[in-house]
């Protein structure tokens, strides 16, 4: 199994949804169909990083920036993926407000195949090379969950109930 397949397998085991696309515009019909199925208003809130590269999507009303919790669907760009644990790594910055990772009900994350690494070792080296760290380095391995009542896992404790990862390339 190669690194990308392994990443998809482990992330799926972490209760995330994964879609493979060749390029960004292939995500649009998938998102539109999802909004219809879930009877969600066709509104999507983007991180500034994604907003700059977002293709024309007439069926969806777009907004961008950080969020105050009123945006149900938010989309961000990841910096890396870790195959061995099914983990996304997102870095904060002017282009990547971190509230988008935690406040929406549905969090959509875009990641290129070449950003996926085998394990965390490569990540530590990559981060150390960066020099000073960004304010927040978020490792996300699936949607928010809790087992605080009777050891029973329930999704959507405080953060996103649904994590949808688009692997591009």
């Amino acid at each position, binding site marked *: 199994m190669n690194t990308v397949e392994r990443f998809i397998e482990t992330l799926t085991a972490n209760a995330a949804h994964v879609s493979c696309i060749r390029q960004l515009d292939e995500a649009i019909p998938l998102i539109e169909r999802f909004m219809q199925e879930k009877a969600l208003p066709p509104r999507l809130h983007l991180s500034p990083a994604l907003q700059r590269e977002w293709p024309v999507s007439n069926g969806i009303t777009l907004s961008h920036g950080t969020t105050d919790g009123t945006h149900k669907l938010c989309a961000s760009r990841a910096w890396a993926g870790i195959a061995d644990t099914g983990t996304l790594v997102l870095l904060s910055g002017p282009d990547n407000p971190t509230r988008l990772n935690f406040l929406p009900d549905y969090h959509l994350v875009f990641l290129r195949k070449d950003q996926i690494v085998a394990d965390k070792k490569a990540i530590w080296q990559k981060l150390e090379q960066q020099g000073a*760290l960004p304010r927040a380095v978020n490792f996300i391995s699936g949607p928010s969950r809790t087992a605080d009542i009777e050891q029973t896992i329930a999704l959507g404790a405080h953060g996103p109930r649904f994590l949808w990862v688009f692997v591009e390339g």
Partner: protein
Amino acid sequence: MIQRDARQFIPNSEQALQDTTLQTALARAKSGFLGKRRKAIALVDDFEFLKQQAQAAKQRALDNIPALLDQFEHNLNAAGGQLHRAATPDDLNRIVLDICQRRQAKIITKGKSMVSEETHLNTALEQAGLDVVETDLGEYIIQLAKEPPSHIIAPAVHKTRQAVAELFRHHHALGERDLNEISNLVEEARQMLRQRFLAADVGITGANLLVASTGSIAIVTNEGNGDLTATLPPVHIVTASLEKLVENLEDAGAILEVLGRSATGQAMSAYTTFFTGPKRPSELDGPEEMHVIVLDNGRSDILQSEFAAMLRCIRCGACLNHCPVYSNVGGHAYGSVYPGPMGSVLTPLLEGLNQGHVLPNASTFCGRCAEVCPMGIPLPDLLRKLREQEHRQQLDSTGWRMVLRFYSWLATRPRWFHLAMRAITFTQRLLRDASGTRLRVPFSNGWNRQRELPAAPDATPFLQQWQKQQERKP
């Protein structure tokens, strides 16, 4: 009523053993934790290797704490954050309160922090008129119930879903609704706490790691409450203790490899975040101020003592889950902030032997805690050392001291010892119950109420057999 006093361990555990709701909850928790950890470890090629890496990383840090703390401070400052050193629990509470008052804060959200339990921070903040809301679901439940946590990673593990539903009905004025399903309870807490997250003036979290080379703090959660607490309010305060320091990111990574697997049976928890300072000028979100308070509370002394290994603890809770004592009496019986084997070592060290001397006796020395500890802490050895100290300082009971004195007299006199053994072998035949497998010893009801003393078989005692064998030899 279970008392919050470590000296009351024995009466507390008697009550706990008779509490049927607690017993149901404990049985469920035990099987859950053990199974999840076992599965997670089976998925790793070589968990022993990961443990060694984690232990080496922690040991490197413990050997160099003062320099690492300075380095951490330097890098945190460079990122715009501020370090505060708190020698005592009161110091920590005062530093937090000063920041809250300077910011004229009213609502405080909190992520889970055992250090803040250690300093009784909530009480201090509430006494100053602040509105403090715990946001970890387990912590929120016990805050409503006005109880301390009963487990270091699952604070409400002693509560059943019915008990949680009752608490929510009492505290949330939301009218008639279905709270039978766990998912409904989680959803209700989400709705209630979401408003508080957005309204909070200050967010307080703990830290699983302090990284010296970058000035970062790491928080591991599954709910995401730690991140919301750290990100939404204008001020983020971190309450951590000295031994959370590691040299660099790779060492932090080594500890993360064993933490999740040992605690909840996850290779990675849903959220692990490294925070380095407050919001940068160009950023759209993040707190305006970030303060990291590092609590000593006797840890510098522990580091120099024969108990230094205890500071390797990463609070995964594996020793609690595998302890036959903890899993029968639960966390509250310990009457201390930290329960179970790690708590039985830490409580006397942090609160003094006078307060905590009973807890090292809350162990059968079965050794499972040491076996499952990812950081290789020799918990039974440390408990034994504390029992020795208890005895030396004459804190154990007079009756027990007399028993020990008599035994040491007997055990150093072979002739008398053998005579006594023969007498015991003989008399125990008279004390067997009807089944012939158990003993009924007079005046030992305390022992017999919850345990059985097995009867010895009829065979000749070992020493007599040995002697005979020696005599037969040519």
